[in-house]
């Protein structure tokens, strides 16, 4: 596997990111964290959810590496981790490049079929 297979290399990682992002509550949690770090109880309040329910969502976000949680403070505040999201952006750009290249070659193929120069 090298960069030719960029799509495959990142797929497992990114399916975690994308499935984490697919849930509106988790997106709202990320939105909240974009405004600053927060503890579980601070997150539970605006969502009118139990801390257990919020913790479940946080686990999904943490597994997808979209947030980090402090190991030192007892309240274990959550922070946004944007690096992994950048990776997702790069994946999309690469994916788009696959289509661009594909259409370049399709163009050449069509030209050959039609007996013209592309």
């Amino acid at each position: 596997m090298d960069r030719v297979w960029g799509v495959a290399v990142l797929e497992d990682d990114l399916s975690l990111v994308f499935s984490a992002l697919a849930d509106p509550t988790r997106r709202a949690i990320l939105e909240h964290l974009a405004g600053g770090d927060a503890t579980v109880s601070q997150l539970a309040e605006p969502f009118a959810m139990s801390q257990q329910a919020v913790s479940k969502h946080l686990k999904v976000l943490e597994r997808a590496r979209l947030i980090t949680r402090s190991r030192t403070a007892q309240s274990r505040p959550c922070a946004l981790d944007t690096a992994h999201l950048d990776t997702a952006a790069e994946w999309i750009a690469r994916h788009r490049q696959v289509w661009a290249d594909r259409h370049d070659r399709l163009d050449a193929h069509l030209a050959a079929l039609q007996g013209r120069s592309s």
Partner: protein
Amino acid sequence: MSGTGELTYRRVHRAPPELLFDCMTKPEHLAHFWGPTGTTTPVENITVDLRPGGAFETTMVNDADGSTYTMRAVYVEVRRPDLLVWIEPEVEGGMRTSVTFTDLGDGRTEVTTHQTNVPEAYMSAQARAGFQTSLDRFDAYLARLTS
């Protein structure tokens, strides 16, 4: 940024929609252009069962080291020469690709590729959370899409 939650790639080709549809659905055509740059997809590595529910699978071979990668998709809609839709159930919890062929009436056809799921989840989170670095990249990416 459109906010529609879709990634779109458009391209105009000098060919009728029927030919473009066939290029996208016949292994003997696909073999010429499918695989990402640096790979080859031989005709015998391409499965096309052109009906809703039918398989669309391509095994791409890396030119450098012979390693392979298989895309496994299932057709959802097949309407020659206007529309082709497939999903890849194993990718990001189900990635949907729709390819629309629009006859421009002058011997050219616009091919529009929409990919959803990935961008939908991505864009909404981006737009709402305001991750600036990623947004900047995304804007640059969209600019290239529409250029």
